[in-house]
């Protein structure tokens, strides 16, 4: 049976052109780009070319791009650097819905004497900009806010937030792992100092990340070692993956429009049809300011793991914010921060599409999911078919 992959916010398939670009660097072109001989030197030209493609996707200059091993490394590098260059400051601003790469790091830093403000979000996952502005202080060393949320796709107004931080001389970092390639980004038109993203979310392989650092931003490296990346990130370059990422960024620049037309159309179709055919279902997050490929839908009174495993029988791949799938005992921190009631949070499913999805696949899911939901609800002690509870109830959250 064909795999229907609707979990592209987790990772994506490597595009065939990307793989093709990478292959020579695993075989004949194995040289070290730092070598003096031209055999190695030719690889450094490839890296330069890739750097240009990466920079071009986000409207940056090639010198502003540092290659890392993943999004998490980029996030850690950015935040730790911002703290190191401002040793007299001890305040960090972030949000409650960040990815663990930022959230866990900041929680860790609170134990090391830093004060961390985790900005709340409203029911639709939106940031309170007034509260953000009031949180900025003289002691603030860095602001780190994600561009788009991985679970709901909700987009934060990071460019405006960066402007407010910039006016006060505070460094601004954004985790743009989910945003790059899905929405247009132009770093020349904003005041964001540092931006992280990751290759495997845009059809490049796993194990390659990017940290953008605006020219003139004070920076201290996280990985010390050789002179690679102009001394800003030691370690021999992951040449094949860098070449692949360059290609992926070139493709992404071409596909951004498709993401916002065809992929968005498929996402909207999936969402609308499921909401129509399944009672007591609701979209989590602001539907206006949202990534074009993501929808997070809660199905009331059932638990997400069951939904995923029954979908798995049809080779449909998605994710859930339920406690059981996260490995912890509580549902997703993002949905909890939004105050999604427990009856809804446990039964949430995230579908995230890519340019590789087809309308046939979406129709298949629209067809298969309603009976799965009905079957699990029959088993649920909370589901009363004779008197369905409509809409959202204000269940008190803990």
């Amino acid at each position, binding site marked *: 049976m064909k795999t229907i992959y609707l979990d592209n916010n987790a990772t994506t398939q490597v595009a065939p052109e990307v793989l093709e670009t990478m292959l020579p660097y695993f075989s004949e072109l194995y040289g070290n780009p730092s070598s003096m001989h031209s055999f190695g030197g030719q690889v450094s030209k490839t890296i330069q070319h890739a750097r240009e493609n990466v920079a071009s996707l986000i409207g940056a200059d090639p010198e502003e791009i540092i290659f890392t091993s993943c999004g998490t490394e980029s996030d850690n590098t950015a935040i*730790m650097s911002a*703290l*190191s260059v401002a*040793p007299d400051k*001890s305040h960090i601003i972030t949000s409650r819905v960040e990815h663990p790469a930022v959230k866990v790091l900041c929680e*860790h*830093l609170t*134990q*090391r*004497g*830093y004060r961390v403000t985790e900005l709340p979000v409203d029911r639709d996952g939106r940031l309170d900009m007034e509260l953000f502005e009031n949180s900025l202080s003289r002691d603030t060393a860095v602001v780190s806010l994600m561009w788009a949320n991985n679970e709901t796709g909700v987009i934060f107004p990071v460019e405006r937030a960066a402007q407010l931080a910039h006016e006060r001389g505070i460094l601004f970092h954004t985790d743009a792992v989910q945003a790059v390639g899905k929405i247009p980004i132009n770093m020349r038109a904003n005041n964001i100092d540092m931006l992280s993203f990751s290759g495997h979310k845009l059809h490049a392989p796993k194990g390659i990340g990017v940290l953008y650092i605006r020219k003139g931003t004070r920076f201290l490296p996280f990985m010390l070692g050789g002179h690679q990346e102009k001394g800003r990130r030691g370690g021999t370059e992951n040449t094949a993956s860098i070449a692949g990422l360059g290609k992926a960024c070139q493709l992404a620049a071409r596909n951004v429009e498709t993401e916002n037309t065809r992929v968005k159309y498929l996402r909207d179709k999936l969402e609308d049809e499921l909401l129509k055919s399944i009672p007591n279902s609701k979209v989590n997050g602001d539907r206006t300011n949202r990534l074009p490929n993501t929808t997070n839908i809660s199905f009331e*009174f*059932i*638990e*997400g*793991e*069951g939904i995923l*495993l*029954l979908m798995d*029988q049809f080779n449909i791949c998605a994710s859930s914010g*339920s*406690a*059981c*799938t996260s*490995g*912890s*005992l*509580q*549902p997703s921190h993002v949905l909890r921060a939004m105050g999604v009631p*427990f*009856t809804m949070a*446990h039964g949430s499913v995230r579908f995230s599409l890519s340019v590789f999805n087809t309308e046939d696949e979406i129709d298949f899911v629209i067809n298969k999911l309603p009976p799965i939901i009905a079957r699990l609800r*029959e*088993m*649920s*002690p*909370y589901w009363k078919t004779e008197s369905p509870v409509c809409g959202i109830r204000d269940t008190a959250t*803990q």
Partner: protein
Amino acid sequence: MWEYTDKVKEHFINPRNVGEIENPDGVAEVGSIACGDALKFTFKLDENKRIKEAKFKTFGCASAIASASALTELVKGMTLEEAIKVTNKDIADYLGGLPEEKMHCSVLGQQALEQAIANCQGAPAKEPGEQIVCECFGVTDREIEKAVRENHLTTVEEVTNYTKAGGGCTNCHEKIQAIIDRVNITSEPEGLKEPKQKKLTNIQKIRMIEETIEREIRPSLKQDGGDVDLIDVIGNRVIVATRGACATCKASQFTLKGLIEQKLREFVSPGLIVEEEPK
């Protein structure tokens, strides 16, 4: 992805005895939607006072559904005296085992059975004097004691896997540790069964922590002009104070917790949590 046995998968895909018996002889509702697991269990007796029919409705993950399905199959044909002896382990064994983190699903089944039998016999569902220990998941001291005793649990993490207690805000970890200590001191290991991990006395634990710091941790800190002192050990919390260069360097402290905790978990006990002494 969870490693479920084929039997768990089979009982999840084709659960037995889903539903509710009308006019049951015993009924119980355990868990809650906030906890992410809930089970409604009903049974009916035949003329010989054996369980003729048992049914369930479950809100929860695949292993919760499979555990409830297994429970209804297990108890069919049993007298109440036989059924009350069914443990959570029997349910898990019936399914060919459950992942450690999912053992609470089998505990939920056992609790439902126990309450339904009590209901059948006209007894109150909860014994007087029971106290809630974990506020997040509403778990009582008696439930924790029972899980610790029957499954030979030795760490807070294991208790969380089996009962969910301590899986939320973590404020009750000390209380849970106290229950573990109490149960493990009073109960002798049964027969030939070895407890999973040898329980350390507090003095042994402190000595081992001191040794590990001296041997594994201090030398590498001293290289950078730092040092660390053990201040206190409260249950599984190890309170330390950093000295020298470590005490003033914010960035190095970031890796310090990682290093100390990793070494102590490796050489002393996997449940340890390292905290820095408040300044």
